[in-house]
């Protein structure tokens, strides 16, 4: 029961933030799916099923925040690389600024509650 509650809590927190984690990973370099997903998967607690990133990538592409391009790979078949568009860059910038404000505010309130 506790773990079900924790799952739903994490799902809700992830809902609005995960897409910006994807955008952030693409800020400085284009990445192919496997690389991107593994990097996210290695961050503890961020995702539990790596495959769920792909529908998100589809959505981001549809919204024009990322684009894809094929590049040769040193080993195996060519890879589809995901790149940030300028709209994606702007979205990320906006989120980053708001996120700082938001987490600061939440932190302050949580600590206030603790002190009493």
């Amino acid at each position, binding site marked *: 029961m506790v773990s079900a509650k924790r799952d739903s809590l994490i*799902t809700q927190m992830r809902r609005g933030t995960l897409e910006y984690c994807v955008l952030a990973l693409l800020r400085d370099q284009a990445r192919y799916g496997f690389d991107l997903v593994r990097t996210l998967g290695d961050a503890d607690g961020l995702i539990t099923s790596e*495959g*769920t990133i*792909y529908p998100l990538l589809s959505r981001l592409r549809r919204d024009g925040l990322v684009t894809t391009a094929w590049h040769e790979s040193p080993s195996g078949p060519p890879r589809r690389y995901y790149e940030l568009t300028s709209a994606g860059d702007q979205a990320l910038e906006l989120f980053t600024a708001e996120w700082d404000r938001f987490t600061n505010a939440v932190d302050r309130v949580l600590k206030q509650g603790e002190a009493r």
Partner: protein
Amino acid sequence: MTTATDALIGRYLDDLNAELALFPAQQRQEILDEIGEHIAAARAAMDPETEADVRTVLERLGDPADIAAEARDRFGIQAEPARPATPWLEVIALVALVIPFLGWLVGVVLVWISRLWTTRDKLIGTLGGMSWVVAGLGTIMVEAVNIPLSASGSDTPVGSPHVVEPTGASAIEVILVAAPFVLPIAASIYLAIRLRGQVAARSGEVHAGSSRGSRV
């Protein structure tokens, strides 16, 4: 080794394809392609490739149902089966049924085309609307046996003690006049109620089939 792992991967992608059945073909293909590429990239990095490693890759990708749930969430697909589209054919049929003659004819055709009603429902709709025709024939027959519909009271002999007499005739009148209005409307309401039940049941089916918890 390769055939065993190929079969494993094939089954995984088949499952995912089935879970994504509600998606437009292009979106479904996109997700399948990219998951396929993920697996190919993971395999290319294996040296040597083992079945256990491939299993781990698939496990990390996660349950196809979870991936489909996430996709529905991101694209708002889940909302569609939960809130079913208006069954326009049936709605038009219900309206047409209460319009005399030509409307009824159109309504009956549409009712029988629809797959949301049972045969019994369709018969009720057909016969209910048909009361226009029956009433029309009835009126002609009554006219034919010379019972004037509007002036039944005036035929009563002046001296008759039974003043109740005219009400016998006017009861037929009332039925003949009212039935064509009441019966098609009643039949139409009955069909509307049945339709609501059907639509709710159908969306319930789809919804239940696709409402596994979303996990990222």
